């Protein structure tokens, strides 16, 4: 086979394949198809464009060929429909310009009665407009107003926050003072109490509390034993009860002292804006201790209160 022939065959065959492929695409797209032109009208040309698809039941059946303005100021929309789709365009068909929020606009054809006579070429139906964009804007307007309000509030807050005499700046100033104060103290308790004397007093109180606990424990053992003794032993002038009474009075005195200390601590702690977490733990320990003392007293009261002659009065 000569070189000329090979080249000829290559060019010939490839061109034939290429033309066949293009013809197939052109035929499939209806390029060679006969078309009918219908004219629609609209008060405004807004949203219409040449090349816009004409859709029936979700299928493209044609496209807008041209837009014109007639003598009466009406916009005339020429649509081209291929022969095979002309059957969907009837005299009672309605035409709607549908402008979705996302995607391109299209003219939607809906035909209720497909047996009605075909649309005459001189008949000019009007296109109604469905506008997703306007609907969306109408729906979004109240939301936008709220957003504007929120933005205004946020702006006010920001202004307040940035004001050197504003609340936040004052709080921050106080916090700074407290932090400076705390930084200069030796221990956590000292930080909370702000004074070494008070710290010593707190330590003493804590020691005393420990003693009280031991005393109360011993007392409980004694009370338990007392319960087994006779009334005489219990209520007699030389009995254990008067002794317990004395101890309890002492204990009440100590508790009153402790109360003052706690009040003092509370005052300091409120100044320190809840201070530190460790101080809270200390306070809760003391509270627990007081609670347990109260429990003991109640227990004792219960124990003693069941007797006929309740000479002993709980504090």
């Amino acid at each position: 086979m000569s070189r000329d022939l090979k080249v000829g065959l290559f060019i010939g065959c490839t061109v034939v394949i290429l033309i066949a492929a293009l013809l197939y695409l052109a035929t499939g797209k209806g390029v060679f198809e006969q078309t009918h032109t219908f004219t629609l009208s609209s008060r405004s040309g807004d949203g219409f464009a040449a090349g816009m698809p004409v859709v029936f039941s979700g299928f493209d059946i044609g496209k807008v060929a041209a837009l014109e303005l007639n003598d009466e100021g009406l916009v005339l929309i020429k649509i081209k429909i291929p022969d095979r789709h002309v059957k969907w365009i009837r005299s009672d068909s309605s035409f709607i310009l549908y402008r979705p929020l996302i995607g391109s606009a299209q003219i939607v054809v809906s035909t209720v009665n497909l047996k009605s006579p075909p649309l005459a070429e001189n008949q000019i139906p009007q296109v109604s407009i469905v506008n997703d964009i306007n609907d969306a804007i109408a729906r979004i307007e109240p939301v936008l107003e709220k957003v504007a309000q929120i933005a205004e509030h946020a702006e006010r807050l920001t202004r307040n926050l940035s004001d050197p005499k504003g609340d936040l700046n004052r709080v921050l100033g106080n916090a700074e003072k407290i932090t400076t104060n705390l930084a200069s103290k030796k221990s956590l308790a000292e930080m909370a109490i702000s004074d070494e004397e008070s710290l010593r007093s707190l330590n003493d109180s804590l020691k005393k509390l420990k003693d009280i606990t031991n005393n109360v424990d011993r007392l409980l053992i004694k009370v338990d034993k007392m319960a087994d003794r006779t009334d005489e032993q219990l209520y007699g002038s030389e009995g254990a009860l008067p002794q317990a009474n004395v101890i309890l009075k002492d204990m009440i005195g100590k508790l009153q002292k402790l109360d003052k200390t706690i009040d003092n601590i509370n005052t300091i702690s409120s100044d320190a804006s809840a201070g530190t977490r460790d101080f809270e733990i200390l306070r809760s320990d003391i509270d627990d201790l007081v609670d347990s003392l109260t429990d003991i007293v109640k227990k004792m009261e219960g124990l003693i209160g069941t007797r006929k002659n309740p000479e002993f009065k709980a504090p």
Partner: protein
Amino acid sequence: MISFWENLGHRATMLFLAFADTIAFSGRVFLRIFQRKTYSSAMREVLVNQIYFTSVQILPVFLLVSIVFGSLLIGIVFTLLKQFGLTDFIGHVLMGLIVTELAPFLTVLLITLRSSAAINTEMAVMKVNREIKTLETFRIDVIDYLLAPRVINGIISIVLLSSLCSIVLLVSGILFSRLIFGMGMDVYSKILLISTNFSDIVIALVKCGIFGFFITLIPIRFGLRASHELTSIPVAVSRGMVNVFSAILIIEVLSLVTKLF
């Protein structure tokens, strides 16, 4: 500092002049293509030989590469579309990306690597051997006899081979759409028809023609710039090839810009 700006200005001027010179030369060659006297029987013989070497001789290899590479590409793209739930875009991806962009690009790369390099070397060797001077001595126009047939061959070969490559890709698309999406032939062809945009096809064909024009013209031009020294051959070839690839990128970008409008 001043010398730096002088140097920069000089380089910019030279670059601009070289670009303008290439465009003017391209214009001359392009016009010559449409003159009847260009098509002497000697020129036609060269044209046939060039098409034979560029297209016919490599056709089996080209088809094989198109089938293998195209199938691989389509397989990957279809799988990705399925994974990302973009099955609706299969037609647009197939026509807009694979057929009108990747097929011409694959073709032009293959032809550039094979033929442009050969043309560039051939011209440089002819210049070094004083064969160009021989042609001039016998009053044979270099543009008519050497450039025109090669450039026309470039245009014809790239357009035809690129079309073949596109058709091969579309055929392998049938297979892969069935395997990956379980899509029948009818649905596949319908999707293709919906996604086909004739303006895109026209742009792709014009782009192929421009590719073909420049991937042959630039190597010839740089080959003819060789001196009579043998050592100038590799310099001319490497410069020519770098410029060819720059031209390919510029044309590709310009075609994308054209599509945007």
